[in-house]
């Protein structure tokens, strides 16, 4: 069983439609560690020790957050800045995260078609996520394909519940080693993992 850690960040979950449902869907899932950053550190004073210990105990690290302004909410940046210390996460002696898998679980208001050269946003989500990709590389981790839920603005509650169900299934497969992890970096989205029966064991 792969050990999965979800670092979750949403500053106003009470207003969220998508993430509230995602959380409901995965609530109490055995084998998954759920770490709610804004709940844990409402004053942004991140306990570096605790966070590093959590990271060391897991194989797959998922940063789950809304895709605010083409990036993550503020606390995720704070978390990256403080937790991924030189000498621990990167640098000559920084091997604590070596070989682990890292990626983002994000929701975007706009449709996928907007994230293209000719689209409204001009760049792909992958391009916007380069800071995360490269952070993973620098920390000797594999950046897995991100899990992206597009078009949240247009979804009604039934669509959202459907998305949440798929999300739970993906997590279950990750946890139960039903996805070959080494394939994850080659996919475009982790969402595809569900549709790849050849990859399931």
């Amino acid at each position, binding site marked *: 069983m792969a050990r999965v850690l979800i670092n979750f960040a949403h*500053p*106003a979950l009470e207003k*969220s*439609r998508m993430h509230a449902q995602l959380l409901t869907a995965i609530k109490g899932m055995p084998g998954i560690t759920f770490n709610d950053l804004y709940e*844990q550190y409402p004053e942004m004073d991140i306990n570096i020790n605790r966070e590093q210990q959590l990271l060391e105990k897991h194989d797959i690290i998922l940063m789950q957050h809304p895709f605010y302004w083409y990036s993550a909410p503020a606390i995720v940046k704070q978390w990256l800045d403080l937790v991924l210390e030189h000498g621990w996460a990167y640098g000559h002696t920084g091997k604590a995260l070596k070989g682990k898998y890292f990626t983002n679980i994000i929701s975007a*208001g706009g449709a996928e078609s907007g994230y293209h050269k000719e689209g409204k946003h001009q760049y792909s989500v992958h391009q916007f996520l380069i800071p995360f990709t490269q952070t993973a590389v620098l920390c000797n981790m594999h950046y897995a394909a991100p899990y992206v839920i597009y078009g949240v603005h247009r979804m009604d509650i039934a669509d959202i519940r459907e998305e949440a169900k798929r999300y739970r299934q993906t997590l279950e497969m990750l946890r139960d080693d039903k996805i070959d992890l080494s394939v994850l970096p080659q996919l475009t989205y982790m969402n595809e993992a569900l549709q790849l029966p050849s990859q399931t064991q």
Partner: protein
Amino acid sequence: MNQHSLLFQSMVYLAAAIVFVPLAKKMGLGAVLGYLIAGVIIGPSLLGFIGKEGEDIMHFAEFGVVMMLFLIGMELEPTLLWRLRTSILGLGGLQVLGSAAAIAGLAYLLGQPFNASLALGMILSLSSTAIVLQTLNEKGWMSTAAGQSSFSVLLFQDIAVIPMLAIFPLLATQVVAAPELHEHTLRDDLPAWGQTLVVLGAVAAIIIAGRYLVNPLMRIIARTRVRELFTAMALLMVVAIAVLMNLVGLSSALGAFLGGVVLANSEYRHELESDIEPFKGLLLGLFFIAVGASIDFSLILQEPLLIFGLVIGLMLVKAIVLLILGRIFKLSTDQNLLFAFALADIGEFAFVLLSFSSQVRLLDEKLTAMLTAIVAISMALTPLIMLLYEKVVQPKFTRQASDKEERSSDEINEKNPVIIAGFGRFGSMTGRFIRANGIKCTILDLDSDRVDALHNLGIKVYYGDASRYDLLVAAGANDAKLLIVATDSFDQTRQIVELARKYFPHLQLLVRAQQVEDTFDLMDLGVLHIYRETVDTSLRMGVDALRMLGARAYHSERAARTFFRQDEQTLKSLSALRDDKKQYVNSMKERIEEMEKLISSDRIKTWLDEGQGWDAESIRDEVRGEPEA
């Protein structure tokens, strides 16, 4: 009649001081010179209002010197002494040895007997603590390298008087006839070893009383909360020491100095200091007047050349010794000059030692009289010399001086950047936090029991009322950066704030307020940093309550901050409304209504709309209205 003359004399002294000191100050001469001039003018040589026999005035006025030494002694915490050990022993010791040797040698060459020469050397090697410290303080030079060096040397000199008093009887070759003039002391009828024993006993008594008697006594007095008792106690201590010392025939100034040293670590130190300070100032002034008055102009007129020649010669010799020492101890040229200028005079202890030497027949009477005049003249010249330094010498070095500033200022800076008034449940938290961050605080508190309790915990707290100007000065308000006012009673808080705004405008004030009314008052006083106690704690409680009811932590936290911000704003606007004192009740009512209105509008507008940027409904509406991209 006697009483009348005492009153009359007091009137003459006080009037002279009040007329001449401001005049002298206005002319840029400094207070010390003002007192001296006043003394000369009302003295027997000119108007003759006071002192047909100058000695008597001196005797009384010496009490100012006694108090000053008591206060100097109190400055001497062991840590400070230890830190200054090189300059006290090295610089001070060499100064006394060097000057004494040079002067003794000259005296011997001029035909004085060997023993008398030695005594002269020792007497004249001393400088005037009273005048030099007063002048250095007045000009703000205490913290300079020269100021610190001077302080060390003066300290050593004050201590050196003790062995000198012991040596002089041994130097006296003639058999001492029972002295008829000076007061009968306990020592007189005793053999040599008995005398030593009495002296040691007196010193031991002071130390023991200072250590084991004074603190409990002060505690009792502090509990009565009658402030003037403190002053009485402080005065009583100094007087008692002086009397005891006179009784055994020692210098009362020395005893007081010793008493001060013993009390240097007492938690009542600042309180004692501030109680005695005004008396010290006045009595020192009296002392300076007496010095001025005791200058015997007829004697000077008889042999003006000899006397002025001797004054200048002596001061030159001392200055040369000082300059050499300053060089050795690596003072920069300007500081070295100040050091030499300041200490070239001859001190008040010379009066004591001169009368003592004539008692033991070490020096003859004519020489003693002449030397008394010389000492007085040299003391009177000191402020003039310092003025010369300030106006002529220093300007030439201004640039170098500013370069040196940084290095010299932290040499012996025992004043702390933060003063905390009140170390109760509020101030102690702030104080502990600041101390934990490695910043030193001078802590004052008025609750003697609390001071004791904290003392037992190893926290240094001074007993004292921070609403007093002198105490704040003693606590270092002139050099501090912050004044944290966390006193329990608002009356006191207000007094401290008013005092600080008036006399220490450089101090940043951080003030605790208990009631909303206090806050308004503090706003009126122009305080910018006001801390309403319990506001933060109550909001923290509110945050936890929201969380326990299921709200998200970050939301609760933000809600509390929003509420706090709103509340502060409300207070500010209400403070303006409050000006109409007649409609106080009305405005109170208004305030309550206003608060409620704001709180409810908070709930509707601010709290729910917080984080408009996060998942705004409007963007969904907009997107739904468009065709899919």
